[in-house]
């Protein structure tokens, strides 16, 4: 146990995801050693993050404005909506450059163990958007794990009643990889999702 500010910082850093007690200690002593200016720049960046960044009023992506960069972009196709769990998923899909529609960020996935149900996610807002905007297709791009699949399946049921095409992104093999290195589940999914040539 250290005393005073050092221990406080170790505890705060230790609460960050992926940072264990050892790493927290190392980071704290690193910050103690660096120039005051460097430490202040980090502190300012954190404060700015909380002050300036907010969530897009339309899609809940991270944004510095009322609406995010994608929602404000007139070149995006407003008729296709991609539903993802987190803002970082938007980033991942944006990097592909393949998707020209807009997004809707749920803010997580359904997980009763963690107390997350539809009410804790931006599902009500999604349904509202379908009523207000002229959306023809919803692409469900939640994670291909149990909670993501359950969320997709829940949304599939919910949106069935509405006049909109609902699709789910495919699961399968990584491009450029070898079949023999694929895990059994992925390979199994790739088989059941095979397509005709």
């Amino acid at each position: 146990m250290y005393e005073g500010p050092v221990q406080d910082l170790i505890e705060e850093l230790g609460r960050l995801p992926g940072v264990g007690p050892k790493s927290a200690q190392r980071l704290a002593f690193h910050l103690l050693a660096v120039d005051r200016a460097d430490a202040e720049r980090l502190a300012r960046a954190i404060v700015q993050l909380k002050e300036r960044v907010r969530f897009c009023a339309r899609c809940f992506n991270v944004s510095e404005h009322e609406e995010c960069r994608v929602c404000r972009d007139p070149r995006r196709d407003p008729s296709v909506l991609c539903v993802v769990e987190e803002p970082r998923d938007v980033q991942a899909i944006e990097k592909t450059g393949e998707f020209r529609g807009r997004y809707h960020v749920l803010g997580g996935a359904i997980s009763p163990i963690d107390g997350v149900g539809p009410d804790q996610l931006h599902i009500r807002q999604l349904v509202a958007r379908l009523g207000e905007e002229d959306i023809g297709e919803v692409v469900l791009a939640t994670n291909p794990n149990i909670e993501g699949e359950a969320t997709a399946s829940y949304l599939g049921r919910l949106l069935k009643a509405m006049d909109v095409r609902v699709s789910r992104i495919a699961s399968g093999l990584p491009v450029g990889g070898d079949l023999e290195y694929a895990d059994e589940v992925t390979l199994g999914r790739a088989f059941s999702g095979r397509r005709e040539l």
Partner: protein
Amino acid sequence: MRVERLELVDFRNYRHATLDLAPGVSVLVGPNAQGKTNLLEALHYLAIGGSHRVATDAPLVRTGAETAVLRTTARFAGGRRVTVELEVRPAGRNRAKVNGQLQSRTRDALGIVRSVLFAPEDLQLVRGDPGDRRRFLDDLLLQRRPAYGAARQEYERILRQRNALLRGLRAGRQGTEMLPTWTDALVRAGATLLAARIAAVHALAGPAAAAYRDLVATAPEQDIGRDVTMEYELSTGRSVTADPHAGVPAPAELAEELRAGVADVAVAERDRAMTLAGPHRDELFLGVGDLPAKGFASHGEQWSLALALRLASREVLHEVGEEPVVLLDDVFAELDAGRRRRLADRCTRFEQVVVTAAVDDDVPLEGPRSFVHAGTLVAAWPSADDGGSADERGTG
């Protein structure tokens, strides 16, 4: 396949030990609590990635050490040799090497060594809870089909989520509309497990009955009605009688059956806040003749039945791929002279068998002997020792 060499570092009571094994029969002799079983446990750990005795890895590491290393060289059909090494790290992830090459996923190193273990604990297969018999089927399937492990993990995760939802609903929280979603996931994942387990029961039926008949060898006139029967009892109320000629059931049909089963218990599920239908509540019925083996069969019959199930597992595993090594822990002492002889006859047909015994004379098999004494392997019998009493059963 067969194991040529097993090397242990800081495993259980072994600081460092090397055991060279010949094809055919090898016998490990020593008094109780010296470390005979630990050697079989190590070999089986290399095959399945877990211990048959403990659920966590911490007891496997020698007191005072942080990790244990298990290394084996196995020889396969055609003369190919593979070295598998596992570092057991209770404080973190295990590390695995195949031919010296670090594997990114430990489970890629499992299943190279194949083994079937029969141990005194296996009496629980007959006497224990339904969970013990489900685990028997699951462990067999894990060894036969690596994808089964992932399917079971998925099912267990869905089950935990669905139970959490049911608990929330009972506590008055929102979320009824999510129940169909989790039921969908449950029946889809559950049907995969069911199809695999029923197929396994069908495959086991013939070899298990044959092994039991072979071991017990009652006179033909007594034979009638003393055969082994197996039935897979679904939580939905239906039973599937083991039948070597039955086809593999279709997962889609099982999913619908499971869906109906879940619907039947819907009220009780809400009441008890837990999922009451699914493969986690199934049972494998074992019978001798018309009677259930649990409760009706004698100690000797139960023992023979458990052994027959393990011997049948060997046949089922051998159907696909390399012949597994058979590990028999302290078996012969429990059998009468006739059964000992018949088990020994069967053992001589296996590519490799490793047998432990407290008393050498209990094992009517030719083959090299290794003597186990206080965590070391010795060439000759240590002089000042009690020679092993068969009654006390320690950690060895």
